């Protein structure tokens, strides 16, 4: 497991380098999901970086599409494409736009960015797996702020109604959105109670404990007839203290050369 912790650290380094290469970006919400990305790509998901479109693979929809840099860093670390490409983020003509793009980035399973839509897309993928009876698991990561979108709840309602037990959704509960904390903007808390009452098999765990994330996924897979919600209690900007300390102000920020050096030192 310490190996996965090391990998997560390396992915955080790549994420910060990726954003620093452009000079700014969505660093807070990228760093908060690195541990779940590590758990998925290095332990849980049936995927092949040499064959990104492998038939019957497990899929991940990052519904909070602005976490693109963390996703790209993970995919590059896993070998889907060259790490050097991370330094093209958002430069004109790049294959790595801010928000996840399935047609540009090998390994990205769904284009996302307009919040609320990705979880519905994941529901569609989960239905397709059921139709094909191929045993594939569909994972989705949604944001806490994102869950202010009504579409999230339309998707949740339908997933439970259809008993999509091959759908495992993570909620990145970092309590921050652009205009403030979720408690300040629109307090949509009680996520556990909400998803539970919608008919999900629900868990609430430390979102930075990779071992626990893996254990919870395995536990969830044993529960049949319900979609699964794993609430990840996270820290926006996790891993780099000066970014963590910015709190709600770290959604999309400039990262200077000095910031990068400071961050990399901490992530050694």
């Amino acid at each position, binding site marked *: 497991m310490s190996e996965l912790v090391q990998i997560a650290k390396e992915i955080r380094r790549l994420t910060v380098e990726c954003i620093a290469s452009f000079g700014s970006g969505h660093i807070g919400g990228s760093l908060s999901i690195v541990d779940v990305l590590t758990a998925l790509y290095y332990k849980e998901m049936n995927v092949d970086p040499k064959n990104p479109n492998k038939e019957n693979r497990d899929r991940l929809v990052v519904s909070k599409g602005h976490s693109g840099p963390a996703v790209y860093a993970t995919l590059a670390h896993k070998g889907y494409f060259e790490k050097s490409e991370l330094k093209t983020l958002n430069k004109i003509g790049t294959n790595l736009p801010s928000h996840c793009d*399935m*047609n540009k980035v090998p390994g990205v399973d769904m284009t996302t960015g307009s919040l609320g839509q990705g979880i519905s*897309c994941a529901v569609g993928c989960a239905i397709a797996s059921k139709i094909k009876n191929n045993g594939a698991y569909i994972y989705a990561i949604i944001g806490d702020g994102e869950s202010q979108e009504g*579409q999230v709840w339309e998707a949740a309602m*339908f997933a439970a109604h259809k008993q999509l037990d091959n759908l495992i959704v993570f909620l990145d509960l970092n309590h921050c959105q652009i205009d403030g904390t979720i408690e300040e903007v629109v307090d949509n808390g009680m996520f556990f109670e909400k998803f539970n009452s919608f008919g999900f098999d629900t868990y609430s765990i430390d979102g930075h404990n990779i071992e626990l994330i893996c254990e919870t996924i395995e536990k969830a897979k044993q529960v049949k007839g319900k979609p699964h919600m794993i609430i990840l209690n996270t820290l926006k900007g996790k891993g780099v203290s000066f970014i963590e300390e910015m709190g709600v102000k770290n959604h999309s920020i400039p990262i200077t050369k000095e910031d990068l050096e400071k961050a990399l030192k901490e992530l050694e």
Partner: protein
Amino acid sequence: MEFRQVFYQQLSKLMKEDERIVVLDADLSKPNGTSPLYKEFPNRCYNVGIAESNMVSIAAGLSSCGMIPFIFTFAPFATRRTCDQIAVSLAYSYQKAIIVGTDPGVTAETNGGTHMAFEDISVVRAIPRIMVYDVVDAKQLEMAIPQMLNYDGIVYVRVPRKLYPDVYNNEYIYTLGKADILKEGKDVTIFTSGIMASEVLKAITLLKEANINAEVISLNTLKPLDKEAILKSVKKTNRAVVVENHSIIGGAYSSVAEYLSTVYPVIMKPIGIQDEFGQTGKYRELLEVYKLDYNNIAKQIIEFMK
């Protein structure tokens, strides 16, 4: 035959042959005629409830896994309500789906103004990778449905649910994306969109009495536009009228005018909804209110030709 019956029959046949096809409804499977498919293909029909945005994004997920979703709902919900989901989940993501928007324009009848989409074409037409097809009659729709499966992109099908007059005979062969010359003439070209073709053909008798020899072209798809057919006809007549069961902003008139203005500008007359909302009423009553019945169409063209 009712348009919804055509969809049911075609899908019942095609779903047997093609395991990729999935049907999605948003609590309108009975009105839209897809409900019998749920018994025939229980594994490939999904009623998502009254949640159209969710339905469109689910379709994108299905498509990303190699399925071909057909989405059914009323035209305003299929376009206005789900515009961003169509743009991002489907079009921008390069996914494939057939979106069937039923009872467009005045065919919404007594569902009234809230359900009467006069701007559905404008809403989707500006989004790349979408074919916009305004269905003319049941025979044409029957031939079009299998062709939709091969289109690399999204097809928006604008179609009433119920029975409307036939325009084409049994020998008719339709190629999706092409226009049809319904009548040849030399004085003016009347471009018609969707079910307005039958009204325009009825107006022809009145135009003849006024010594106007009109050419009638059914546009069928507004995107792609059959530019060759439009230009060829207008070069002969030098005048154009566009008749549509849709706002004159962003629909068939706009499509033809945008094209002709760049290659061969002629004087044009839009006959459609003049930037106003819908209201409740029966089909023929509404045609008269909005001056889209054959009498009013003929009157407006005669005035235009003075």
